[in-house]
């Protein structure tokens, strides 16, 4: 069954209306309203426990919710899991792999939603995998076991698996958690490049305010499951909102047409 989404015809890739998630009596996400347009990068910011991961898992259909989630204008409840996987890729905070998994095997798994029932390898799939590997600088690592790679290389492999899925949207859950500052910067630059080149929409949960906001178009700030602010980075990221989000006074410092936040305590 093919997807009925035709690229270019819809501006809003994602729309959430009155999105609420309850786990037992506890309200984890409370009445969220936001949208994401074609080719945008949105940073999802908030303290630990603010609901970032739950939101991403809800958007791929892993968590029950009240309200409405529309992917490409169609309710998530009307998408088959497989067709949604052709449009939306997800990279968790700690992607899974088994010892001995080679890079090429990890990348091949990304083609799964596009394959037939016997899931045979086709030339066009292999061509796409090599193209993505080339783009991410993984072409010489294809036969390496995943556990022999550095943290930065590994994250690129898992990003590659998402790209091989040929999605319209990629959801990233704190993708730079285990990376040093240089690799974090490299990763966000790569994300920006891919979004511009391939027109992919990206929603990424981040801890590092400064790096995330430096590479995103829009930002969504969560606090205890509530949407504190959502919109253009320059408008939203002010001292009041960021201080409230992290429950600590923050100072915004302008620097070479960009800005940074530093804690005052």
């Amino acid at each position, binding site marked *: 069954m093919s997807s009925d989404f035709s690229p270019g015809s819809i501006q809003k890739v994602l729309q959430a209306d009155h999105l609420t998630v309850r786990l037992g009596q506890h309200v984890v996400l409370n009445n969220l309203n936001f949208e994401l347009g074609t080719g945008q990068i949105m940073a999802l910011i908030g303290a630990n426990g603010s609901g970032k991961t739950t939101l991403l*898992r809800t958007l*791929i*259909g*892993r968590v029950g919710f009240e309200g409405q989630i529309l992917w490409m204008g169609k309710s998530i409840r009307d998408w*088959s*899991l*497989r*067709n*949604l*996987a*052709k449009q*939306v*890729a*997800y990279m*968790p905070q700690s*992607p*899974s*792999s*088994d010892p*001995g*998994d*080679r890079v090429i*095997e990890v990348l*091949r*798994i*990304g083609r*799964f*939603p596009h*394959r037939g*029932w*016997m*899931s*045979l*390898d086709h030339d066009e799939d292999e061509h796409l995998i090599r193209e993505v590997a080339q783009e991410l600088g993984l072409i010489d690592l294809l036969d390496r076991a995943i556990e022999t790679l550095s943290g930065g290389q590994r994250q690129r492999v898992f990003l590659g698996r998402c790209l091989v*899925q040929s999605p319209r949207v990629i*959801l990233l859950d704190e993708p730079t958690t285990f990376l040093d500052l240089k690799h974090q910067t490299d990763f966000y630059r790569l994300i920006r490049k891919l979004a511009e080149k391939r027109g992919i929409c990206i929603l990424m949960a981040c801890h590092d305010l400064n790096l995330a906001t430096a590479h995103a178009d829009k930002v969504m700030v969560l606090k205890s499951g509530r949407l504190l602010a959502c919109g253009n980075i320059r408008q939203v990221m002010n001292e009041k909102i960021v201080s409230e989000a992290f429950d600590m006074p923050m100072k915004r410092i302008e620097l070479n047409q960009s800005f940074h936040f530093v804690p005052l305590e």
Partner: protein
Amino acid sequence: MFVLLLISSGVWSLVAIACLMVGSRSVGWPEYEILSLRLYNHVLPASLIGSALACAGVTYQAILRNPLADPYLLGTSSGAMLAAYIYRLPVFATVGWISALTPHTFALLGALGITTLVLILCGSRGVIHPVTVILVGAIINSICGAVFLLLNSIFWDLQGTGGILTFMVGDIQTTASWQQIYLSALGIGIGWVLLVVLSPFLNVIRLGEDEASSLGVKIQRIRGLGLIIASGVTAAAVAISGPIGFIGLICPHIARWFCGNDNRRLMIVATALGASVLTMADALSRYLLSVQFIHTILPIGVITAILGGPFFLILLLRHRRE
């Protein structure tokens, strides 16, 4: 993939032909009657059982995300063992429908019954978690083993074929009827085809729930299906062999060294490897009879455990060093 299937079948065929030449008194191409006897009583059943255990092992290890998972984890072997023993109890010998069955069919029912019980207990909330499966399987295995020993202490002098060790160690049951072997072969054949179809999904579900779901796989459905099919295949094998150890555990691991972690390839290579290894173990048990100090043919389960364990250990340590 088809090339891999051809190569794997070719390797198994060569092993099977070589093993046909091994006898308890001589090594060489035998006369037709002996050839036929070795083929139908040893090489084909051993290949059938070995392939069943290996492909079930691949499935269990992927679904339970545990490299130590083996086909007997869900109580299949202990269910068969208990049922085979219960079949011989005097109290059941008088029950018409039970005495109408062969002991192997009764063992098959026992294996399926216990496995079904484990699966029902694991999936009672509609969600199958690997850790729950492993724990429930271990508990049910222990209970079955305890009941078996309890019955054995009460009815210690049971009459019947095969002896108490038959269903504890595992061997090719030469007393199994042809109908029983055909039934098992049919079950294993259908199960294997289904597992090959399921194998691409196994690549995805070993990633974890969120990632599998984001790749379009309904993980609970695949876990349930995979466990049911693999358990059915194991039950069909155990009914004619008892619990032959190590094949379901080591063959998937050895196959991984040849073809990597891709379950599509692994399912084919491990199946051929399981069939070949058990056929070789069976040939060795025949050959050992010619050794002076061995007075009776060794059950295959003893050979796979004695040789399989250290062999796997050596390969594992060498592989880790590399």
